[in-house]
Every structure is written in structure tokens, then in C-alpha cells.
């Protein structure tokens, strides 16, 4: 099963040596683990605190202190990873899936369909990221599912464009022509040739878009248009803490650090994967 071809093995070896991948991968791994294990590793209930213990500075009992409702900031940061993980992975996954299908089909079928898809994608891309998310929020309102929808929608056109681009290249290649000549079915050609050959840019881009999606989702929550309390979310924690900017900086500093490092991790990983999978860009 694990009989890898030499090219893949070379790529993997390069990946293992790449410092960006190692650091970024480690950060991402910590983030994912934090999100998955939140119920087991968080010392307190993230949504229930004791009001009498509100705004306590960091201590042994509450390493990151408590927020205005007496909730443990550390536990909320850990559970916040889970929220970010859900929002970013689900929305990017939806965007990739939809983008690959639409982009691939558009390139493969061509004609007026391709023309229409390209136009629509252009229009969607002329809404800057956060504006598109705001637009969706204006229509569907705040909430976890709606943030996922908003972020997925703003990622979608980018994946259509990437998939379409690489599918167009692959489509003209000899082996695809050959496959078609021997009567291979369209879905089969799509799955066996178009998809695998477009995988590298999709993976790189998906990693980078995860970073951007985490930021956008946190931004929406910061504006009050994202995930609603008491679900712990980093952007929302920072927004809530603005009243205590001076008196209790621990409430906004820690979620900020968590958000920053997580985004950094995905960016590092994305950069590293880009180096390894698209070697021509290396200087």
C-alpha cells in the first residue's frame, strides 16, 4: 500500500526538511489538538464562571485570569480554538469542494458555461473579502452557521479560479487527449487526471485560505456579526474586552496571541508547502 513512487518520496523528504513546514505544521498541530481535546484539557467550564470572580488577573488557579463574567480565559482560549477550527475547516472544505467541482467542470466543458462561470467569479472577486462576508451577514444575520456560510462564500471563487486554471492546462495535455480517444468517461477523466494534477495548488491555497478564513471569522465576531456568546470565540473575546482595555488587558491579550500564532502557523505551512510543491518559485 505504502509503496510510494520516487517523486512523491522526494517531495516528502523535502517537506520534512523545510523549516516553514516544520514550524508551521507544529503550530497547526497544536491548534488542531487544542480544538479536538478542548473538553479534556481545559481546566474550567468556558461558559460558566462565578461572577464574584470577575476580571481576576492571571494566577495559579486562572493562568490567563478571568473575564467580566468570571469565566476562565484560558479555558475560553482553548475552546476558542475549537470554534476557529470548526469555522475555518468547514468553510474552506465547502469552498474547495464547490470550487473544484465548478472550476473543473467549467474548464472541462468550456463554452458558454465557462464564460458565465468566469464572469460570476470575476464579480464575486470584485467584492473584497470582508465586504462579501459583511454582505452575507447582512442578509442571514450572525451565528456560527452563518459565519461558515459567509467565509465559504468568499473563499469559493478563488478555488474556482485556481481549479479552472490548472484544469485548462491539464485538459490540453496528451495523456488526457489519449484517455478521451480510448473512450474513457468524463467523470473518470475528471477524477483520474484533472483532479490529481490540480491538487498541489489547491492544497497550498487551501492552507493559506485557512489562515485568512480564521482571521475573517474572528474579524466578523469582533464586529459582533460572527459567532454569538456564550460560545467562546477569539475575536469576540477581544471585542468584549475592549471595555477593560486598560484595567484588564489579560482578557484581550491572550486570545489575540492565540489567534496571531494560529494564523502564523497556517501561513508558514502554506508558504512551506508552496516551496516544496511549486519548486520553481524557490530563489
Amino acid at each position, binding site marked *: 500500500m505504502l509503496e510510494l513512487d520516487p517523486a512523491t518520496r522526494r517531495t516528502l523528504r523535502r517537506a520534512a526538511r523545510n523549516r516553514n513546514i516544520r514550524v508551521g505544521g507544529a503550530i497547526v498541530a497544536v491548534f488542531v489538538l487544542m480544538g479536538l481535546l478542548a473538553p479534556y484539557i481545559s481546566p474550567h467550564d468556558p*461558559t*460558566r*464562571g*462565578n*461572577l*464574584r470572580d*470577575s*476580571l481576576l488577573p492571571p494566577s495559579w488557579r486562572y493562568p490567563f485570569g478571568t473575564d*467580566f*463574567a*468570571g469565566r476562565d480565559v484560558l479555558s475560553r482560549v482553548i475552546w476558542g480554538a475549537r470554534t476557529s477550527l470548526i469555522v475555518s475547516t468547514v468553510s474552506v472544505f465547502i469552498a474547495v469542494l464547490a470550487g473544484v467541482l465548478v472550476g473543473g467542470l467549467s474548464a472541462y466543458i468550456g463554452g458558454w458555461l465557462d464564460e458565465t462561470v468566469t464572469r460570476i467569479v470575476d464579480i464575486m472577486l470584485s467584492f473584497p473579502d470582508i465586504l462579501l462576508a459583511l454582505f452575507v451577514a447582512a442578509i442571514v444575520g*450572525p451565528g456560527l452557521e452563518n459565519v461558515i456560510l459567509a467565509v465559504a462564500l468568499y473563499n469559493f471563487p478563488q478555488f474556482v479560479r485556481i481549479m479552472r486554471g490548472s484544469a485548462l492546462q491539464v485538459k490540453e495535455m496528451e495523456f488526457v487527449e489519449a484517455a478521451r480517444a480510448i473512450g474513457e468517461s468524463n467523470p473518470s477523466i475528471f477524477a483520474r487526471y484533472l483532479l490529481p494534477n490540480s491538487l498541489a495548488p489547491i492544497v497550498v491555497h487551501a492552507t493559506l485560505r485557512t489562515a485568512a478564513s480564521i482571521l475573517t471569522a474572528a474579524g466578523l465576531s469582533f464586529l*459582533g456579526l460572527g459567532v*454569538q*456568546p*456564550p460560545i467562546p470565540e477569539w475575536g469576540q473575546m477581544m471585542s*468584549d474586552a*475592549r*471595555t*477593560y*482595555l*486598560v*484595567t484588564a488587558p489579560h482578557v484581550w491579550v491572550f486570545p489575540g496571541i492565540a489567534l496571531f500564532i494560529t494564523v502564523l502557523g497556517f501561513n508558514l505551512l502554506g508558504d512551506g508547502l508552496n516551496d516544496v510543491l511549486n519548486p520553481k518559485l524557490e530563489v
Partner: protein
Amino acid sequence: MNTKTLALAAVVIIVVVAAAVLLMAPKQAPVQRRILRVAMGTDIVTLDPHDVPDNPSIYVIDNIYEGLVEYDDKLNIKPVLAERWEISPDGKVYTFHLRKGVKFQDGTPFNAQAVKANFDRLFNNKELANRNRLVPFIDKVEVVDDYTVKIILKEPVATFLNLLCHPAGMMISPKAIKEGVDLKHHPVGTGPYKLKEWKPNTYVELEPNPDYWGGTPKLAGVKFLVVPEDEARVQMVESGDADVAIRVPAIDVPRLRKNPDLNVNVTKTIRIVYIGVNMRSPRLQDKRVRQAISLAIDRKAIVDKILHGVGRPAKSVIAEELIGFYDTGKLKYDPERAKQLIKEAGAVGLQLNLWTPKGRYPGDYEAAQAIAQYLEAVGLKVKLRVWEWGSYVAELLKKPEDASPDRDLFLIGWAPSTGEYIGVFRPLFLSESIPKFNLWFYSNPKVDELIKKAEHAPRDKIIEYTKQIQEILLDDLPAIPIYNPGDVVVYKKGIRSLYYIPTEVILTKYAYFGSGG
């Protein structure tokens, strides 16, 4: 070599840009009569006193318009455009003797005809938001002579003068009314200041009215700046970019008290913040559940930790300052009893929705989260929803049959802008106020009857009725009183005669800059 040049260039560019920006800042000229700059949280909505729905608009309107009478900072009634008045023995006829030599800002003289024209406007324009503060009580208004006017009531109302202190009782130039001037944007009153410019979402600037009957105004103008972020308002007073900051976060009080250049005024208000209960929600029909909710909440902790001591735990549905207040002693913190009641009612694990606005009242959003915690601690389940104010009001004001089926508990505040008890009981608890401000859809014939009796009772008999009303309301609990927020106003030392009216209004029209602290 290159490195240094580059670094140097970077520094030079940044410094030049920063310096240019700083130098462009206008210099403050030292003048004796200065403009009072007030930083407030939200923009005003209208300058029409008969149609004002919000406090910021009242801050501004109070400088431009005057009524026959007004409140001082202790809610005592002071004569303004009326010099004195008589009340008939049956309490139905109010005869006002008007101040002479008063002119509106468009030159029209103020007299008894002007008073009549204003009440006619209230009578004839059904869409004026505040007409029901006065119109339901008045039978007619009669001009006796140029400077005497009689207001005849349908039935005696002990607090009629209080009702007249409301902006609905302010006097607009009859000429402007007649000519159909857009009063929302072009106010014409008798007050010491008049409108210079209203720049939406940015500021409202007033300039002195040189013909003011009370002498030349003491300020070169009043400028209300719209600064939505609490921290920013504080900062502006600290840095001298504003003279007064309204609604300062309580958490900043200890720090600001240490600043020798500032006065920190922690005020009382007559606002009560309630957890409203949808009396038609199938989940809240059992009185024991409502009582358990009330007992589950530690009001003192909310005041201490969320309001940071600026405010008081609520003792009743009306504030202690109001005539008719009575402490039933029912609003206690007793989680054990609450748990027991929930068990008795078979409501363990009952899922309730709790709605809250954010930033409308001090500590609203934070308190709602704390209350959710308290309710979960006694065995209920709570789903919190944060609303934007505009849509929140729209939802809450819906008719019972159109209301969302998710409406269970909702945080809402009420401060009677008339500064008296009728302004609470009538709009909030009378059956006929459904679907207006009776947001809980509470209908109790006994309470209706008592409210009407209380309205027309002579002053010394009011408490007999209001005591019963409060006993019933705190047993039924259609609205669970939680806290009575205070307010914090911070202003520069040296500013004199800046008053805070407990109806949550900052009164700037008497203010002036004195010398020294």
C-alpha cells in the same frame, strides 16, 4: 553603508509624515467665553421636542427649547416660561402666568396664544411620538389673556406638572408650526442656544441666542460630539479634546478620580433594567418558574462586578426616587429556594431563550451573560441571543400574535422621561398598552384598575394604590427588576452649573467656565 542609508531614510519618512500630520492640527486659541464640547455616545435623532424618542436628542433640545416648567437635578419642579401657577381645589384646572418679554429665536413673541398653538399641535398630530404623555389627560387649553393660560384636565392628575417637564411640554415658535418648518432639522425655541449645524454622526453645534430673555448665554456655544466608543470619550476629556464625557464606563472611575484636572460625577438615575418575561410563552406560565428566576439572580454581585458599583440592585419596578415607590422586600437572592421552586414546578432542564441588546444600557450584555450563568446554576438551560438595538425594539414592539415564538426572557430598561410613576405603570403594565410598551403582554384587570386610581389620586393617597400595584407585580413578575444603573459624567474642573437630571439627561444650558478648580 546601504543599510544605514536605508534605515535613515525610513526614519526620516516616518518622522516627516508624523510631523506633518501633527502640525496640521489646529491651534486652540485662548478665549474667555469658550465652546463647551460634550462627547456623547450616539447621534441625535431629531430636534423636534414633541417627537423625541431618545436622550441624546433631549440633551441638545434642552438648550434650544424651554417649557413652562422644568426639573432640577433633584427632580424638583422649577418655573421657566411660566413664572407662577395656581391649581384649582379639585385639581383639574391649572392656571399659568407666563413670563413676559420672551421671544422665540425667529422673533415671534412668546405668549398665551403660543402655548395654545403648541398644545393644538400635540392634539392634532397623531404621529408625534410623545403626544400621549400629555394629550390623554388634557380636556382643553384656554387663553385667558396674553400672558395667562388655563389647562383644564379631564380628571385630576397629581403629577401633571411633572408631565409638563417632559420635552412634549416644550414651546415651539407658533410661526414655525404654522409655516410647516421642518422642525426635525430646524428648531425654533426660546432657549439660550440655537442650532448652528447638525452634521450627522459627527456633531451638533449650537451658538448663543443673543436675544435670550435670561441674559447673554455664558458659553460661546455648545458642541455635542458623537463618539460611540466609551474609551474614546474618556480619552478625549483626558487629553482636552472634549470638556464633558457622558456615559463613562464605571470601571474607569477609580483611575479618573486620581486625575486632578477632572471632576467625576457618579449620578443616580431612575432607570430600572428588567428581565422581561413573555407572559404568553408556554414555558413561563408557571408563576413559580418566574419567581425562581428572580431568586436565582445575585443582583448585588451584578452591581458590584459588572456595574463596578455604579448603580443599585433594583428593589421594585420603579426607582426609589419616584413618588409611590414601595419596597416589598421580595427581590432577594436565594438560589436554594429557586432550585426548590424549579423542582416543584417540574421545570428542571427547561430550555429558555434570553435576549439582550448590547451597549444600550450600562452592563446590559455582560449582565445578560451573568444572568444566564445564574439561571443555569439553579437547573434551567439558557440560550442567549444578542440583538442590535434597532431590530430588538422592532421585535419587542410587535403585536402578541406576530411576536417570535422564541421570546421568553429579554433584558430591557425603562426610565420614565416624565420623572414620575405614571410614566412607568401606564406604559408598561396597563392592559391597553399591549401592543405598545407592555412588552410582557401582561394583562391583569386588578392592576389596570389600581393604576387608573393611582393616576388620579391626590398626592398623599398615591402610595396606597402604588403599594398594592407593586405587591402584585412583584408576585406575578411579568418584568423582573434587576438593577438600577447609575451614570458617570466626567468633566473638566472649572466647569460650573453643569447638571445631571436623574431622567438621564445632562443639562448644559446653565453651564459656564469658572476660573480655577
